[in-house]
């Protein structure tokens, strides 16, 4: 059979293509798997966990600080006893401080005086993670805005970016200000920013967050916002709820019943 160089190269090329194609054919499942676009955008979508919280301010008793104590003890949060160095993961604000952009004119006086439990909102669009130059704060796949204290350089850009004041800076060595260590959880060191982690260490063990567990009035509901059958989703669909500063577009994962 007569065969010139061009003909030989063409046939060899076809052979190679067919060989590679056959390899793809051996693995047909991955070859035609539907691309999950959410993997590219990182935005919250159904089908993946997005932890969220619903706080019923009506059953949250004024003056009660059990959740705050439980959280701060569980996470070795220091108590310096003064406002300047204050470190807080969860705390209580007045209504108009928690919801400064909602109308307060002629509001119920009881509501204006009410204490609202506030913490990191674990926003779906967190401004803090964009500000962080080292990616020390980042969004986990389960929706939790996490802190990697190993990477934090203490620049405090995240504190400036957070519209909710959810972040605290360790101006001093926190260790002397911790009354009793929880051996299961590390402390922080001077010069890092810290905040609520939605008890990711407890979630990994299948437990509810410390604040939820310690609340005597059962005012806090925790669950997966992406699961249409979860208790939190049912409660959200049944009653009117609020988010803090919704106009900023941060899409907080913490909701409030007023």
């Amino acid at each position, binding site marked *: 059979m007569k065969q010139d160089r061009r003909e030989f190269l063409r046939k060899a090329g076809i052979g190679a293509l067919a060989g590679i194609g056959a390899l793809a054919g051996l693995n047909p499942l991955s070859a035609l798997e539907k691309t999950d676009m959410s993997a590219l955008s990182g935005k919250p979508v159904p089908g993946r966990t997005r932890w969220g919280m619903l706080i019923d301010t009506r059953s949250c008793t004024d003056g009660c600080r059990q959740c705050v104590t439980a959280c701060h003890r569980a996470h070795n949060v220091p108590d310096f006893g003064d406002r300047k160095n204050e470190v807080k993961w969860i705390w209580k604000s007045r209504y108009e401080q928690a919801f400064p952009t909602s109308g307060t004119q002629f509001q119920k006086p009881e509501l204006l005086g009410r204490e609202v439990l506030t913490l990191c909102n674990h926003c779906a669009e967190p401004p803090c993670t964009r500000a962080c130059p080292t990616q020390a704060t980042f969004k986990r796949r389960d929706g939790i805005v996490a802190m990697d204290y190993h990477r934090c350089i203490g620049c405090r850009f995240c504190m400036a970016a957070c519209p909710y004041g959810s972040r605290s800076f360790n101006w001093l060595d926190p260790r002397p200000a911790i009354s009793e260590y929880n051996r299961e959880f590390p402390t922080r060191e001077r010069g890092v920013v810290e905040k609520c982690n939605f008890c990711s260490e407890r979630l*990994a063990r299948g437990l509810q967050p410390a604040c939820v567990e310690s609340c005597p009035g059962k005012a806090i509901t925790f669950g997966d916002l992406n699961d249409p059958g979860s208790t939190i989703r049912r409660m959200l669909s049944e009653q009117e709820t609020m988010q803090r500063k919704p106009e900023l577009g941060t899409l907080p994962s913490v909701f409030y019943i007023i």
Partner: protein
Amino acid sequence: MKPSGVLMITGGIVLVMILAVSMFSPGGGAETADRAAVAERDSTACIASKEYMRSHHMKLLDQWRHDAVREGDRIHETPDGRTFEKSLNTCLSCHSQNRFFCVMCHQYANVEPTCWNCHLLPTETKE
């Protein structure tokens, strides 16, 4: 070119494209939250041999830190099928029997790891 040749080449190109697409299919990224409950804490045997741990514990801990903090993957599986939580506390659940376990060797080797700036040394907590 003969029509059959065109067909063959087109077929080859399509097959290569399928292969290329399959390479970019997203990985599962399965959550490990529910598996953490079964992770062991106390064990009579270490996760790896003494020699390996002596020379490589810092690399292993660095990997654990990355997996647990950044990926949320908290389960370590040993080649013989045992599971452990990727946590410094897993190590300390045995190795804090000797409260100076870490310190002794680090002092001898004159290394000052920053772990203990935040993580609690067994010597720092009252038992």
